[in-house]
């Protein structure tokens, strides 16, 4: 089938299956649907649309059909996105299962593991979270202590994970655990899939400087995990972890999803115009004009670099360690942007609560505070700099 034939097919299918309520400007589609057992649809049209996508394999179009995908080529995926964009719709299902675990399973899991887990990710039935970091093992991820001791056909897992994003809303967790305490630290780690309904698993939300957060601590108290839930060989979990971190960085480096700006709330310029009482025309303070221009220009440069990289990947060049550059730069750019926006917003953005203050009023403040985590979580800026220095520039140890 040629590209254009495929395009025609897609159009027809969309005409038939995408409800008008899920298209265009007034679309009722939420930004993201994370799925999982706790999730229920707020609107039947959304449910109809997602089910149609799932049936077609188009929530994860590049995955093989056997695992819930549609086996599309990169070019076909591109066409699919273009056609959905053209009518103002998209596939709202998104999860760490889709963006991180799925690609790792495709590479490292057994056939049985793939058939068990991938379709439920594709359909949104099971929501996954990530159990990597521990309180004592931050940037030095591989120094993790959470242990899994073999007992017959099970592992007994004991320990604590931190920064397990949305653990309290997730059904399963993929975990790095230590299966050999005597081996060098990278060589005693295994990769386990754990059902969070298992006895001994508990979670506690983490409060951040910005308030309530999606992050949790997750505790494992003698949790039994069947050996068949180990991905890849025992003590070879670091190989899986590295592949998965690469996917995470790629995900974090996408400046925006579906062209919505990554920094929520009112734009810089909008805030500046309000704050400086200048509804139109040139702003009265050149220093602020220059600062706003700088972050806008930097974003333009960043997006161009990202586009170039995407084109190169589509042309067959792999994403290498330079993924660290994207994670590093975007997190800092977003911080600079929200720092400036908060500063422009002046005294209004210093308020936390009180008379007449609701969540909308303090959105800029919360976002600014929450953004402080961006240069730390998912690999600190310092770790990214080390990776660039070593693996991109080849500087000596």
């Amino acid at each position, binding site marked *: 089938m040629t590209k254009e034939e495929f395009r025609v097919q897609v159009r027809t299918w969309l005409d038939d299956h995408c409800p008008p309520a899920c298209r265009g400007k007034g679309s009722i589609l939420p930004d993201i649907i994370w799925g999982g057992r706790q999730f229920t649809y707020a609107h039947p049209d959304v449910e109809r649309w997602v089910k149609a996508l799932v049936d077609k394999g188009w929530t994860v179009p590049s995955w093989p059909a056997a695992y819930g995908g549609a086996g599309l080529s990169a070019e076909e995926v591109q066409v699919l996105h273009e056609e959905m964009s053209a009518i103002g719709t998209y596939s709202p299902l998104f999860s760490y299962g889709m963006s991180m675990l799925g690609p790792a399973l495709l590479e490292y899991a057994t056939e049985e593991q793939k058939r068990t887990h991938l379709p439920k990710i594709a359909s949104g039935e099971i929501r996954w979270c990530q159990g990597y970091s521990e*309180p004592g093992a931050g940037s030095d991820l591989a120094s993790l202590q959470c242990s899994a001791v073999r007992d017959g056909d099970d592992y007994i897992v004991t320990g604590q994970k931190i920064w397990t994003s949305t653990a309290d809303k997730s059904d399963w967790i993929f975990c790095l655990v230590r299966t050999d305490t005597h081996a060098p630290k990278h060589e005693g780690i295994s990769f386990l899939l754990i059902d969070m309904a298992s006895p001994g698993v508990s979670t506690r939300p983490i409060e951040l400087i910005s308030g309530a957060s999606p992050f949790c601590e997750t505790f494992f108290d003698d949790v039994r995990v069947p050996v068949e839930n180990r991905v890849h060989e025992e003590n070879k979990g670091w190989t899986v972890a590295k592949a998965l971190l690469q996917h995470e960085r790629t995900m974090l480096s996408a400046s925006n999803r579906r062209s919505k700006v990554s920094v929520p709330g009112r734009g810089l310029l909008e805030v500046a115009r309000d704050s400086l009482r200048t509804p139109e025309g040139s702003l009265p303070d050149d220093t602020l004009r220059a600062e706003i221009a700088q972050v806008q220009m930097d974003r333009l440069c960043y997006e161009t670099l990202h586009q170039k990289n995407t084109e190169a990947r589509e042309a067959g060049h792999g994403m290498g360690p330079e993924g660290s550059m994207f994670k590093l730069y975007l997190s800092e750019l977003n911080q600079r942007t929200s720092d400036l926006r908060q500063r422009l917003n*002046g005294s209004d953005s*210093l308020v936390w609560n009180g008379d007449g203050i609701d969540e909308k009023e303090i959105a800029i403040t919360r976002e600014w505070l929450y953004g*402080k985590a961006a240069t730390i979580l998912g690999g600190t800026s310092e770790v990214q700099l080390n990776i660039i220095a070593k693996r991109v520039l080849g500087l000596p140890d």
Partner: protein
Amino acid sequence: MSLLFSEEQSLLKESAAAFVRNKRDLNALRVRRSSPGVPQVDREIWSEMVELGWTAIPFEEAWGGLGLGFAELGIVMEELGRGLVQSPLLSTVVLYGGIIEIAGSSEHKQRILPEVIAGNSLGSFAYLESARHDPLHVETTLKSQRDGYRLTGCKHFVLDGGSADEFVVLAREKGRPGDDDGLRLALVPADSEGVELENHLLIDGRSVSNVHFREVVVEDDWLLTGAGPVAGVVDQVFDRATVALSSEMLGGIQSVFDMTIEYLKVREQFGAKIGSFQGLKHRAARWFCEVELSKAIVLKALRAIDENGPETLQIASACKARLSDTALLSGKEGIQMHGGIGVTDEHDVGLFMKHGRVAEMMFGDSRFHQLRFASSNGY
């Protein structure tokens, strides 16, 4: 004037440090922030500060003051900042009391200053009408009537407004917003008819209010000065306030710096103390330089206020600009070097970062003071 401490100043510093060690309670700050309603000034701590004589520091002995200066008041503010101990020193002593001292009649001083010193009366300065610090942008009007004046307008970000017994209000008698002419300063009791407050809690636990004035009757003897330009008084008050606030910022900055350097010495990653990594070492060393520069300029600026020389305004702006930048850097590096734990609410570094951020923007951020410095130097 020497930048070193006199023996008396060293003793004051010790006593303030002891007080703060004793009163420092960051968990209370957390609780306060998540309790409903905006809290009032803590009268218990305040009365202890009054007993220690801190409210009396900058006032003349004639009004019951100690006849000391900002060199001394700054010492106290710095120690309070170290422990994030909150008090109405800035709103009541520096702003309210300061304006009365600068621009009040002797009747005003007689009535107000002893009550401020005794801790019986709290006050604040209601000046801001825009999101960014722009003190001459005054739309609030003061209109002459047969039976006195009428005050109408809304002031933002009035420090400790919810606890104040009286406000000094910056209002416009003539001219347009932005003019430095046509301004007046009026005393307005908080319980006057037509005064209405919205109280807000800030991210660092401070309280501020929006204060609405609706056709409030202002009697003749509530006005602080003649019809001359008030802008000079406002400048002088802000010089004092920025420098006092800078001292408080300095205390917070040092706390963040100290706790972070300590963390670098104990936290291990990759089999080594993270303070042994040169990338962090160099940043810590640069941060140290900024802290040292901040200490020096605060000392100079406090003394400049006391000497009241022709360069006071420049020095005060240089001080606030520097402290704002160092506070920003300290919040950033403090959190980043702590890593994940640094962004959790349970760790103290975030509280200091928020304190620094509020102070950074209060009375003008570093951009504002760069341009104020430039203007006052004629360019």
